[in-house]
């Protein structure tokens, strides 16, 4: 069964303290892995798409990387405004590839204190 697991569930950082969020996936084949940011009371905001192992994407203080089994979202020198829930989603080869269906992880809630 296709599955996406994110860790940790919650992460508290001091401003400037770099860290990484993990997204592990078990799928028959990967068509795409997506990272989103979600603020309280709002919809997920698209950040990155990764399609193949070894691929990396960067945006400001965020960098996403992908291996055959997991993805990391690295946050360098975070600021309080980076506080949010970060969601990982996977589109798998097979049944879901005919639908565009995404399998979402439960998310990591990040709090960055000044």
């Amino acid at each position, binding site marked *: 069964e296709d599955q996406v697991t994110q860790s940790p569930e919650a992460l508290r950082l001091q401003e400037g303290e770099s860290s990484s969020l993990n997204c592990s996936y078990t799928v028959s084949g990967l068509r795409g892995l997506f990272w*989103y940011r979600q603020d309280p009371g709002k919809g997920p905001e*698209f950040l990155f*798409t990764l399609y193949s192992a070894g691929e990396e994407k960067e945006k400001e203080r965020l960098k996403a990387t992908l291996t055959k089994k997991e993805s990391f979202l690295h946050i360098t020198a975070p600021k309080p405004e980076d506080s949010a829930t970060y969601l990982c989603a996977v589109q798998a080869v097979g049944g879901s590839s005919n639908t*565009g*269906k995404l399998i979402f992880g439960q998310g990591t809630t990040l709090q960055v204190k000044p």
Partner: protein
Amino acid sequence: DVKVTQSSRYLVKRTGEKVFLECVQDMDHENMFWYRQDPGLGLRLIYFSYDVKMKEKGDIPEGYSVSREKKERFSLILESASTNQTSMYLCASSLGSQGSNQPQHFGDGTRLSIL
């Protein structure tokens, strides 16, 4: 920028009412999706559509229906609202043909309470 607009941010309805949630996207996307998001359960797909007048069931379609009469608009209908349908409802759209692996872009959600 992609804009997905959901008609209401907050909605309160009564048990047994027929409820309509509307979603409009302005990027000419082929694919549109309806999810609900609940604490501890994450995002779950209710219905999706990859073309006008086409619809497909997601993981939890029971108690819901959808309508897509125009490409930019996708409506979610709760036929007879029940308290277990109290949730945050999220609409999304994506570019490309059926099964596209382009990113989905989300609206800000409708927080629906059924009393």
